[in-house]
């Protein structure tokens, strides 16, 4: 079902022009953002505000129409992150680093992790300055490649999560 342009605009503004799964700003990428059905239409998801999310193309590619996935380590079926019901955890990126270190066979991206971390958490903290630049030297995947400079920092970080080594 086509989403009216006015509704798309509303969703974009509601999200603060950030991907609702990984918080990537839409101004920091050349790839077009999408309006995603959190519960896909094939799962009877409705085209209503509560079921629509602003989503980067990486998130779209990873999520597809799915609402759950199999954890590669535990083989458990894990509910995907739900932007309306779940909040991104403050220490999410610390968790991601440790998860990333053990995920040798899986493309691990902030989007993928955010999607698979279907958990309750606190809202992100206030930002404190900007990232000093490209510094990521850990395991790189296609999503964490490099710094979209100017990325907001959390607490006393000098590098944004994308630039922080694993």
């Amino acid at each position, binding site marked *: 079902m086509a989403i009216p342009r006015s509704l798309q605009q509303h969703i974009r503004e509601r999200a603060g022009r950030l991907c609702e799964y990984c918080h990537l700003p839409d101004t920091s990428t*050349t790839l077009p953002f999408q309006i995603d059905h959190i519960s896909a239409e094939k799962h009877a998801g409705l085209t209503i505000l509560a079921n629509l999310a602003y989503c980067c193309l990486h998130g779209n590619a990873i999520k597809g129409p799915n609402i759950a996935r199999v954890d590669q380590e535990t083989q458990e079926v894990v509910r995907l992150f739900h932007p309306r019901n779940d909040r991104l955890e403050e220490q999410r990126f610390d968790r991601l680093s440790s998860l990333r270190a053990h995920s040798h066979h899986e493309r691990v991206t902030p989007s993928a992790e955010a999607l698979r971390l279907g958990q309750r958490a606190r809202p992100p903290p206030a930002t404190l300055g900007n990232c000093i630049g490209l510094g990521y030297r850990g395991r790189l995947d296609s999503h964490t490649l490099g710094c979209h400079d100017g990325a907001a920092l959390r607490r006393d970080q000098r590098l944004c999560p994308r630039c922080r080594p694993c």
Partner: protein
Amino acid sequence: MSPETMTAENSGTTILSRILEAHGSRFTPEAARSMLQLTFDQVDIDRMNALAEKNRHGMLTEAEQQELQSYLLVGHFLDLLHSKARLVLKQAAS
């Protein structure tokens, strides 16, 4: 990183990242401004949107999945290039 340990994670994006980290700061401000002009044509944006729409319905063929991955890869390349270019311009201005 030793050559022996590089193979498993030596994806195109990783290689590109290393090149830009090593040499990206040598761009001139003029070159950086030119790089910021590089972006997708509307035809490609429309195609990406179409692929994303099909992906939302789980209807991508294998070839289309490859195509979407190719767009993502090129997008990363451009984003990284733009990121470096903005840093060069920021440093030149300060």
